[in-house]
């Protein structure tokens, strides 16, 4: 078996704040094969974005600090790369799409220039060649009347169009890995669907790997083959997308799925959606037991005494929960 394209090993990221050290990411492991799509799911503030920024070396230091672990990409440890060598990977081998298409584009540069920039930076294209290829890419992401649009400024485009521009920018150098950080969160639902199908199409055409970060389980279900659920800086459950949706093990994953509205659930029409009580704990705390213990419906003594490790639930599915060892506790409190 070949080694994965991206391998995040035991990554920990700390932020030094006046309130204390925040462990935003705590010993996270992710392996992503070329051509594969995995989803990184969790609510706000659980460390998803920090993980992705760490891959590109974009954690600003201070206050951030990579406290441990390594990130192997194509056999190179990204954390050990410096300046220029890291920059040659950014945008060329690994690209990133951000959440807010409104603010991720430079307001004073025409979109053609912005899509062309990675080509000029990485491939030494002249401005003219780069603009030519940029126009082709803008066409690929289905921007209508591309020639006329090349000189448009971001404020002249709608949110969906801007996200298309961002995608073109990310794709233009033909990356091996695309990290999409909540690419559809800021868009309305119909546009979301268009953008997702566009991304799926491009991914299939180019054969790149995709790391999709989102809190939207619906998006995950459509797009990815494997899902990792993060909670408070840790991965709490991971597995194939159908296993995870059909048989979620971790109470947090179960809570997430229950909090999602489902179509075609007759008889339950008037039922309220379930929420997970409480909110993500402050990460400045020192955790002794399980980080989810305060919100978990099944918490028992052991949960507060010792932190669980990721353990196999079944073939290809792992969870970080003591219920694996004491399944009877689930029925007691439920």
């Amino acid at each position, binding site marked *: 078996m070949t080694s994965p394209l991206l391998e995040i090993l035991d990554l920990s990221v700390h932020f030094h704040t006046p309130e204390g050290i925040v462990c935003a990411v705590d010993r996270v492991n992710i392996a992503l094969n070329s051509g594969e799509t995995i989803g990184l799911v969790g609510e706000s503030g659980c460390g998803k974005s920090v993980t992705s*920024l760490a891959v*590109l070396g*974009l954690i600003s230091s201070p206050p951030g600090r990579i406290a441990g672990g390594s990130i192997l990409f194509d056999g190179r440890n990204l954390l050990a790369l410096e300046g*220029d060598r890291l*920059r*040659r*990977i*950014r*945008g*060329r081998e690994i*690209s*990133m799409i*951000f959440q*807010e298409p409104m*603010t*991720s*584009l*430079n*307001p*004073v*540069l025409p979109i053609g220039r912005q899509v062309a*920039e*990675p080509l000029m*930076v*990485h491939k030494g294209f002249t401005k003219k060649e780069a603009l030519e290829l940029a126009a082709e890419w803008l066409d690929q992401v289905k921007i209508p009347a591309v020639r006329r649009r090349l000189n448009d400024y971001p404020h002249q485009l709608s949110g969906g169009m801007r996200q298309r521009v*961002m995608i073109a*920018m*990310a794709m233009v150098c033909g990356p091996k890995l695309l990290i999409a950080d909540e690419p559809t969160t800021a868009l309305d639902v119909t546009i979301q669907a268009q953008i997702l199908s566009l991304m799926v199409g491009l991914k299939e055409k180019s054969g790149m790997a995709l790391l999709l970060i989102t809190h939207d389980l619906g998006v995950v279900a459509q797009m990815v083959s494997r899902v990792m659920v993060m909670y408070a800086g840790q991965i709490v459950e991971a597995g194939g997308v159908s296993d995870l949706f059909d048989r979620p093990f971790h109470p947090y994953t179960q809570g997430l799925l229950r909090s999602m509205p489902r179509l075609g659930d007759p008889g339950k029409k008037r039922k309220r959606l379930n929420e997970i009580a409480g909110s993500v704990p402050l990460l400045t705390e020192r955790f002794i037991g399980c980080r989810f213990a305060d919100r978990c419906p099944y918490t028992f003594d052991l949960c507060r005494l010792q932190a669980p490790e990721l353990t196999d639930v079944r073939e290809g599915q792992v969870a970080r929960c003591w219920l694996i060892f004491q399944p009877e506790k689930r029925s007691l409190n439920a």
Partner: protein
Amino acid sequence: MKRFFGNLNFSVGFALSAVVIIAAGISLIWTPFDANKMSAVERLQGPSWSHPLGTDQYGRDTLSRVMTGAVNSIIVGLVTVAIGLSIGIVMGLAASYYGRFVDEAVMRFSDLLFGFPAVLTAILITSTLGPSMINAMLAIGIFYIPVFARLTRAVAITVYEREFITAARAGGVSELGIMWRHVLPNILSPLLIQGTIQFAVAILAEAGLSYLGLGTQPPAASWGRMLNEAQTFMSRAPWMAVFPGLAIAWAVLGINLLGDGLRDTLDPKMVRAR
């Protein structure tokens, strides 16, 4: 363009400044009389058909001298703003990018310069280096460095916080490229506005220094210098002071209005409900 001329400040400022620039332009090729030609017979004449703005104590034509003085003022404005902008932008960008020590150094240097009374220091510089137009420009220009450094830093810091900078980094753009292609274009309009205002201030400052005899040296025509010379003849030949004074007021007013108009149109936060 329509956006700019729809603004009253801009239109008036543009018209006033255009008169100064055109007058200066014409004076390079033609003036009614040689600006430095003396004539004992025509000393201290009031405005007349042949000398619309009168003559000075040496019989030199005031109109010609006011026109030539415009060139002088424009050069002073351009050079001083160029000195302030070029060094100020570099310092401000460095401060906003590196932060910490560099930021501290740049800001304290600015405080230091701001701490000195500008006119006094300009007098100090020109009297040490010797009075001349170049030294006067240098003295004024040095005082513009902190003005532009502070402004650049303040605006650039907010630009650096914005997401498209992270996006550019994620795209592999070098820090210099980010500064040049992403930060600088986003801070140009406040710098341009400040530049016009400082341009007007420079004209006043040079006039002040020349009035004190520390700027442009005789026989070259400068509005400030002309005021200085007019002082002695104030009661006998008031036109000698009135016209250069008017020229200064005209130019400064025009450029300030231009700056205000630019601010109104370029700064989205200043757009008023019309």
